[in-house]
């Protein structure tokens, strides 16, 4: 079989042109949407903070360096002399990743959590079997070890993230 180099070259150029044009258009759109996506992330974080401790005075976010799970935390003044912290934590396992906002009171009891991102393959099972009961429970200590929910590894990951946040607070880290 004889290859028609001229024709092959032409089709190749044509394909490359189309792909290049596509990449250009997408880059253009990306400039617009990436800003909006960043805005959404900030908004979601703010909404999450309000879900964790309700109306309270939140301090500036303080970044945490050299920690593989904790990215930052906020000091919270809950009024009536009560205080607490909200930690932004994230972790991965074999089935995906989870990002949470974890509220801890200053006496190291566990507060509410807010799910920022849940890309586990068993996301719904994890949500219904572990995270929602945790959020609804009055006393979090009683439910934190209920990891046998059909998505055990995901639940264990969430539990470890919450405990990591508490240990960081307990350790007196700034």
């Amino acid at each position, binding site marked *: 079989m004889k290859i028609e180099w001229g024709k092959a070259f032409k089709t190749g150029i044509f394909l490359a042109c189309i792909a290049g044009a596509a990449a250009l*258009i997408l880059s253009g759109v990306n400039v617009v949407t990436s800003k909006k996506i960043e805005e959404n992330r900030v908004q979601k974080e703010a909404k999450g903070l309000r879900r964790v401790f309700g109306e309270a005075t939140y301090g500036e976010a303080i970044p945490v360096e050299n920690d593989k799970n904790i990215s930052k935390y906020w000091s919270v003044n809950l009024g009536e002399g009560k205080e607490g912290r909200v930690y932004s934590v994230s972790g991965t396992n074999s089935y995906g990743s989870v990002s949470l906002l974890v509220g801890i009171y200053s006496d190291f009891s566990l507060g509410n959590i807010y799910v920022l991102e849940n890309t586990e393959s068993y996301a719904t099972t994890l949500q219904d079997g572990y995270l929602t009961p945790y959020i609804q429970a009055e006393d979090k200590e009683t439910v934190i070890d209920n990891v046998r929910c059909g998505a055990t590894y995901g639940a264990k990951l969430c539990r470890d993230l919450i405990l990591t946040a508490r240990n960081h607070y307990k350790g007196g880290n700034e």
Partner: protein
Amino acid sequence: MSKSNHRESFVSGIFANNPLFVSLLGICPALAVTKSIEAAIGMGLLFTFVLVCSNVLVSALRKFIPELISTPCYIIIIATFVTLVKMMAEAFLPELYSTLGVFVSLLVVNCVILGRAEAFASKNGVLDSLLDGIGNGIGFTLAIVLIAAVREILGAGTITIGQTFTFLVGEGDPTRLPILKGPGYDVSLFALTTPAGGFLVLGIVLAIIAAIKNAKARKKAVDERLAKEKAKAEAMAAKAAQAAKEAKQ
């Protein structure tokens, strides 16, 4: 092209050649995102947008695309619009984006979109391709919303509003309209929300459509036979009348 042809290219995708129920294309999203009506509507919107855009562009470029590499070109065009839709959804409807997940990307290999590009848009004018895209988009959206409605109402027992389209409820929690499940009663069929329920509902809906088609075909056959018999009887009566007339004379 005449006006009736424009109408034909629009309407055919909705009923007569519905991409899901008649052509049996695009079953994957029809099963995966039909747990809630809202997700199905969102998927339908994204699907229609990609289909219309790719149809128009393929049709506009149909004289320039070399035949040898037509399919790769269509795939690039579709992938571009899918990525565009993906970025838009992530920016403006983040909840919808996370609900649909990987199925937004999978629009690239959706048989309906590629099929319409190859079978229709590459052979017809821009206006017809536009109408064809809108028609097929509406047809597919209606089909998956129907399946989602069955699965959500019977399976979850409630209709949830504001889970995916959060702007409908603002800052608050999503509202759940109780239908089969409410305070004090619960007659919902949980199984329908599972993957197995998806297959089951689609199978039964297709069977109902087939049954209606069969019934129509039977009715047509019976009607034809009756018409034939009636014509025969009339002919006989006419003959008899003729004979009687002749006998009188």
